[in-house]
């Protein structure tokens, strides 16, 4: 999307402009900002390699010596892996559901004109403005009435619904950009609407699908409020609930809490660093419309 042109245009622009200050200052500012941004993250990760007595004596110090016992303790804990499993199931199902439903809805919104299309689009767009917070209390009642309390589908279904607005807003421009000629050519070759969807639309919208998938997955992986309302027994906890339960249960064992916390953020960070360009491109595409 915007990213393909970015590097080229930046390059040309800065060559043609004389900048009044040298880049060491820029690097210095960038370095300070990065230090501020990563400091707290480093504190969490490094703290996990310390002992509690190290942390008590020197709260802001470095590991000396490094101990891996905290991380090992967490990694052999069945509670941790249970929560990783729950978070993974919820994340994958949310992502699959949001992409499948969002892609179908976007396809209709992007390529067919029908009465109420504008209204439907506006409905999804309006959903973008209201995060899950305002609906959480009644949502809890809906989920309870469906008998889904303490079950993972009780988290998955609402998360799919709340992921749909972003998904639709990002995918519609993608699908709209597919030239009509392709569709005409396909239909001349005897390709029906459904098979056009499978054989042309799906492959062509893969970049957009990746963006919305990552957004949905990271959103689900980090979600706190909805699981807090829906999941009340420890066996069903996702990682964010687990981190909180762990940190209140082992409140004296700071080092282990930090180890648990840093292990829980790894998947989101890995996904993000793998697909950073797509996420950023998708976000800006969505905002610019």
């Amino acid at each position, binding site marked *: 999307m915007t990213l393909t042109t970015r590097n080229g245009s930046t390059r040309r622009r800065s060559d043609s402009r004389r900048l009044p200050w040298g880049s060491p200052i820029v690097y210095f500012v960038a370095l300070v900002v990065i230090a501020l941004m990563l400091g707290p993250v480093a504190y969490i990760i490094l703290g996990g390699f310390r002992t509690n007595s190290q942390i008590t004596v020197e709260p802001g110090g470095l590991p000396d010596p490094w101990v891996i016992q905290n991380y090992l303790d967490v990694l052999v804990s069945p509670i941790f892996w249970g929560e990783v499993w729950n978070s993974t199931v919820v994340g994958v199902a949310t992502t699959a559901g949001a992409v499948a439903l969002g892609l179908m809805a976007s396809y209709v919104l992007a390529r067919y004109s029908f009465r109420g299309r504008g209204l439907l689009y*506006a409905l999804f767009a309006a959903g973008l403005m209201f995060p899950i917070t305002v609906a959480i209390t009644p949502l809890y009642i809906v989920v309870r009435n469906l008998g889904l309390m303490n079950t993972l589908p009780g988290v998955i279904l609402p998360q799919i619904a709340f992921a749909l607005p972003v998904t639709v807003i990002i995918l519609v421009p993608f699908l709209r950009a597919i030239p009509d000629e392709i569709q005409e050519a396909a239909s001349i070759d005897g390709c029906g609407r459904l098979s056009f969807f499978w054989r042309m639309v799906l492959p062509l919208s893969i970049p957009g699908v990746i963006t919305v998938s990552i957004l949905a997955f990271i959103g689900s992986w980090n979600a706190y409020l909805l699981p807090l309302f829906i999941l009340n027994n420890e066996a069903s906890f996702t990682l964010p609930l687990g981190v909180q339960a762990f940190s209140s249960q082992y409140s004296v064992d700071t080092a282990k809490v930090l180890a648990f916390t840093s292990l829980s953020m790894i998947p989101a*960070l890995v996904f993000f660093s793998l697909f950073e360009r797509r996420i950023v491109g998708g976000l800006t595409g969505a905002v610019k419309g």
Partner: protein
Amino acid sequence: MAGPAVLVFLGFVIVPVIMAAYYGFFRWSGFGPATDFVGLLNYVTIFNDPNFQQALGHNLFIVVMSLVIQGPIALLLALLLNRRMRGQSVIRVLIFVPYVIAEVVVGTGFSLMLATNGALNGVLENAGLGWLAQDWLADPDIAIWTLMGILTWKYVGFAVILFLAGLQGIPEELYEAASIDGASFWQIQRRITIPLLGPTIRIWAFLSIIGALQLFDLVYIIWGQYVSSVAGTNTMAIYMVATGRNAGNFGYGNAVAVVIFLISMVVALLYQRFVLRRDTAGAITERGAK
């Protein structure tokens, strides 16, 4: 084909909002049918409750301060980073990292780091700045600023990324023409960049405002419902959870949800009407018609 999406969206987004409006008129413990109709009593109670007024005040403070603090910082960073330099893409990724980390992780990390005997005070002490050490989380004079600091840390990267993307959309010819005319770097930024970045800035401000009005996770994780009202960081959403679900008064909680919803919607519509009107990306009003 849009059917399943519409069904799920209606069932889990629209219906709950309507239900909240309905149950908001009842005193209801959340079990069995709601029969104790109290009319507007819940709403009267909400607006007369000093705790809610305090929470609303905090939300408004956070809305304004988020814009005032994050906007300029993000703009400066975006301007600084919008040039060719080695490691540019790495810097962008690293600035964005806090945005990707879960609120729970951020909350847990910061509450340990900012504790009275935590890492920040320890580092200050070692640097000979012990007099700067504070009770960052519990002191009511400081806690809300601590919260602003954490919010800035977590969300400024998002603003930087949006602004950087917006900067890519500004035609280079304008910069060339301006520098031929002898405009200085800051003149160029002030006369060309910032006005042309307007639409991006306005969209970011909108997202920031809506987010600030509904702030919950970080406050609840770091302070919890009781401490947050003592430390002066409680928000409307905290109030909603504390008086609704946690107190077993679901009718009241739903009424608070409706109030937050209406406040957000009024702000959103006013913003759409008066600020975003000029931009093409008005999501509610114009997008659908496009």
